[in-house]
């Protein structure tokens, strides 16, 4: 691995960025030092990604200046940033990879932009990639097409690529939001190694507990401004206080009632591709059932199969004791089973449509008159009432979905299902990339929904499962390996089941 002897400081001075109608970043100073991990936290929409994009040359204009060792550098294109040794792993890694090319080709993508060598030998490329990857310690197949990789393999690939470039400053934008704990721990190890090699790291995360593990210093953003700076990582409550306008109590709301009605959904021996191998469980009215496990354990597939979004090879599904056939989401919705999918931008939202249209889409029939004509007023009122329920911010239902922050996008997807009468609400990683404030709101929402129906929550955050669920299923390799109730739920035990340490 490359090694950089000299210490360096990347400094952003008075950085501002304005979008039509929004001041996304307002005179923010930040300093990243070699060999240090600087954590950047803030609520959704606080401006973290905007800051990252400035530092990586994504925007061709911004106010303020950036210096490296007191030398001003101008970052107008990604190329400028690369030139100055600044690299980033984006929140959505897919934007950084070419899905139709192989791992090896993606690994040396930057080389294709430069002048070294015109002729590329596929075999040499593969050999080199295999060597480089094994040096770094990432077991990614060099000749696989990137579109076939899992999310965390893609992330590793991007990090590997940065390392190959002798990166000086590495920015990690919510790298763990879609990683399981074990994978996250691997990442922390990696961060430590990088630190030892004098790489300066800007680490962005919504999972505050990680900050304590990896960070040396912390900057908190709020509404585009710098709200606080801590030279050493303080108590988490302090960070939360700086992040949010109001002081925060417990993240997980207390659930007072633990009484359940009759069984609403029963799944028997569900099998699907080779990712779900015979899953059976049932939920009752009023119950929150969490399914947890590592990435790739098959949580998403289980939920999608129940919802009819992917075809199950085997299995029976009973709703209210009656067996039903679900071959498509349409069937599932008719039976009162709703899904909030994992990747909200890809699977949840129609980005260039208004929040209103995104909210009313599944039950639009209810607001239609003769010939399917939409009664606009009814639709608006409906959308507004649902947006109110989830406390959408900003409360502007005509704004396009893509211009909401991540947390609020999630709220839009959740709110759409509150318009029907869910019997079972399936939530797949509902708080991924969501700030603490919004997280809490979503938890409250879940508890509210659970009063009238059953909720199944797939999550790789074990804390979340323990904090909110009445019962927890642990999945591993497409099978349920453990079942715990809230009384005997404990993170360590779950972890060891999930990792296969305990059988």
């Amino acid at each position: 691995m490359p090694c950089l002897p000299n210490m360096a400081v990347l400094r952003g001075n008075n950085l501002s960025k304005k979008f039509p109608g929004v001041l996304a970043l307002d005179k923010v100073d930040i300093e990243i030092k070699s060999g240090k991990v600087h954590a950047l936290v803030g609520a959704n929409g606080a401006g973290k990604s905007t800051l990252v994009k400035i530092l990586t040359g994504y925007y061709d204009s911004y106010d303020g200046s950036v210096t490296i060792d007191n030398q001003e550098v101008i970052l107008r294109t990604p190329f400028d940033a690369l030139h100055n040794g600044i690299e980033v792993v984006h929140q959505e890694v897919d934007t950084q990879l070419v899905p139709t090319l192989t791992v090896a080709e993606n690994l040396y993508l930057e080389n294709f932009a430069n002048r070294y060598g015109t002729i590329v030998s596929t075999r040499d490329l593969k050999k080199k990639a295999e060597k480089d990857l094994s040096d770094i310690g990432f077991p990614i197949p060099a000749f696989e097409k990137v579109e076939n990789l899992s999310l965390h393999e893609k992330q590793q690939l991007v990090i590997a690529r940065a390392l190959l470039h002798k990166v000086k400053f590495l920015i990690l934008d919510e790298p763990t939001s879609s990683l399981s704990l074990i994978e996250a721990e691997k990442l922390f190890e990696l961060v430590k190694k990088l630190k030892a090699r004098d790489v300066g790291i800007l680490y962005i995360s919504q999972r505050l507990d990680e900050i304590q593990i990896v960070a040396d210093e912390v900057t908190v953003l709020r509404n585009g401004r710098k709200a606080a700076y801590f030279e050493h990582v303080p108590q988490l409550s302090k960070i939360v206080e700086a992040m949010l306008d109001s002081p925060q109590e417990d993240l997980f709301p207390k659930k007072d009632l633990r009484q359940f009605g009759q069984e609403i959904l029963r799944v028997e021996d569900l099998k699907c591709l080779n990712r779900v191998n015979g899953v059976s469980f049932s939920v009752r009215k009023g119950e929150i059932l969490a399914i947890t496990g590592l990435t790739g354990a098959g949580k998403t597939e289980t939920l999608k199969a129940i919802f009819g979004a992917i075809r199950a090879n085997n299995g029976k599904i009973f709703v209210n004791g009656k067996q039903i056939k679900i071959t498509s989401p349409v069937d599932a919705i008719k039976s009162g089973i709703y899904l909030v999918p994992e990747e909200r931008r890809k699977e949840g939202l129609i980005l260039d449509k208004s929040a209103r249209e995104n909210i009313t889409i599944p039950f639009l029939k209810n607001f239609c008159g003769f010939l399917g004509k939409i009664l606009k007023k009814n639709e608006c009122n409906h959308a507004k009432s649902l947006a109110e329920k989830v406390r959408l911010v900003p409360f502007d239902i005509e704004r396009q979905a893509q211009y909401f922050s991540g947390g609020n996008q999630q709220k839009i997807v959740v709110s759409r299902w509150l318009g029907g009468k869910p019997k079972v609400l399936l939530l797949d990683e509902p708080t991924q990339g969501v700030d603490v404030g919004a997280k809490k709101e979503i938890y409250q929402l879940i508890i509210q929904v659970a009063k009238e129906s059953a909720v199944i929550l797939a999550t790789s955050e074990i804390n979340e499962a323990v904090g909110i669920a009445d019962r927890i299923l642990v999945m591993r390799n497409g099978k349920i390996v453990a079942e715990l109730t809230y009384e005997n739920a404990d993170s360590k035990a779950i972890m060891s089941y999930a990792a296969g340490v305990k059988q």
Partner: protein
Amino acid sequence: MKDRMTNFLLKYGVITALVVLIVFFSLSTRAFFSLDNFFDILRAVSILTIVAIGVTFSVVVNGMDVSVGAVTGFAVIFSTALMVIWQIPWYIAIVGALLAGIGIGLLNSFLILKLRIPDLLATLGTLYLAQGLQMWITKGDAVYRGMTNPWDPMRQVTKGFIPKEFLTIGQGFVFKTENFRGIPVPVIIMLCVVLITWFLLEFTRFGRAFYAVGGNIEAARLAGIPVKKYRTAAYVISALLATLGGLVLASRIGSGAVKAGDPYLLDAVASTYFGFAVLGVRRPNVWGTFLGAVFVGVMLNGLTMLNTPWYIQDFIKGLVLVSALGISFAIRKESR
């Protein structure tokens, strides 16, 4: 203030350009500005508009149907062949052609949805098929009264003909008065298609669903929209409107010429994208498509009246298209 101006130009730039064109032609030719000529122009673009709205549907669901021109031509040959060669009543010929159109639409969706052939490629295949069928039906001949029956080994002359009722579709007028020639039937048909599809796409949940499928198919699917049905519907509507255009064309030319529909493909795609791009709506939409077709129609009509040499009309058409687009996109870019 400046923003307002930009916005206005963006939204109404093409309409303004159209008005300027109309004023210019009205001043420089004798016959341009008259009610009759107005309807002449609309009649001239009626077939294109109908076909182009079909393409618009395929683009709304984020697909593309390049078979429309060939399907239009197929409808021309098929409907007239039914009447002339096989001497079938005109109304059955119409129904037959429309059913065949639906069949082609279903074939397209089968190729695209079941076999997952990329839409451009699948509809290209259908294009060749429909073109081939046209020629096969008549063995390369055109269809006209008194033709020799290509399927008769004796090569006898056919007795069939295209009746008046069928010709009314393309050549008739309604609402005649003493001083007024009446409104051409194709214009009425076109306006019906425009109004119905506009209502469908803009004001109903079906339209919402079409746009949702085009906007993000996976999200639409997970929100409970039967996306396959909508995509199938889009391709069927596209083929059906192409067939309708073909019927109007057949009636307008009162005979069946092979490959008569071919020129409509490019113009229909151009109208769709023109309307998509220029009205400031940033999505395929019925009025934009209509406007695109009318724009071309006004220009061709006016240029002919000005006695512009035929060989530079195409060039002018291209120039106007490119500059209209260029200006409108340049404005948009600045406003960003």
